[in-house]
């Protein structure tokens, strides 16, 4: 499974998780992908989780993202996760956890 979303230029981007990182996450496959989307996509990015095979790259520049019924939007990680992934410092965590 992978995450697809639209880049600023309109071309589709696909985000493929690292198997080692995926193995550290808990929950269903979809929950794991949602966590990765929240972690690695800018907050507020519309995306979809798909297992569609995207292996013919002949016209890679023409790939476009079209929103489907299962479109989701990336959200902020929890403060605990932001600290865990070094996205914030302990001081920033303490200031916002209060």
């Amino acid at each position: 499974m992978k995450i697809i979303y639209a880049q600023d230029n309109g071309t589709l981007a696909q985000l493929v998780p690292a198997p080692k990182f995926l193995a550290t996450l808990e929950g269903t496959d979809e929950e794991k992908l949602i966590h990765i989307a929240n972690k690695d996509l800018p907050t507020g990015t519309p995306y979809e989780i798909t297992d569609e095979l995207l292996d013919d790259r002949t016209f890679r520049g023409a790939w476009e993202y079209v929103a489907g019924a299962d479109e989701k939007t990336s959200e902020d990680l929890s403060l605990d996760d932001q600290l865990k992934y070094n996205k914030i410092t302990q001081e920033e965590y303490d200031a916002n956890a209060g």
Partner: protein
Amino acid sequence: MSKVKIQGHASGTGVLTIEAPNTNDDSTITLPDGDVTLGAATPSIDDNGNATAMTIDSTEQISIGAASGGARLLVAATGNETGFQVESSVAAETTAVLKGGGTGAVSVLECRDSSNSAVLKVYQDGRGLSQFTAKAWCNFNGTGTIAFRDSHNCSSLTDNGTGEYRVNLTNAMANTSYAILQGQENRNHMKTEPISTTQFLCDTLNNSHANADSDNPQCLVFGD
């Protein structure tokens, strides 16, 4: 009143002398209420000790060469001696094991300088953090269905177009002044640079300097 009996040995010929110290104070030796043989049954380390060589304090922290603990076991070297050494006598034997209490970003081992700043940390999650250890590395297939072959501290790979890839780091770098080494097999060259503390660019180009897919890009990251 109980009594004190001093008894000689039937076979020995030596003379046992009980000698008083050079003191003007009265002292009492109180014997335990039980059979005791001095020597073999005497504990070699007592938890009431307060000697300079080794101290076991009331919290059961042990200090060797230091007055107080601060750790379950503190060994303080002085002079030119080695503070702590563990040896193995069997070639196939593990010499030392440090076992953490979890699998997260918590140190199993820390090496610190004289100002107590960590210069090397080994985390429970398998990362080794220092100025001389790689923060992340990856080898991926950038053709067909793109995918990591193997990686360390990489959470995902983004395909932005032909020969345009972004590697997302699991744990963020401290700043964007990190260095990325790169390599590949079948393209002319690569272009890479930090985009943020959590993502770096990894493009592959052909001889005409145009982006082209590569089946074996590799990246290595050092930095804070």
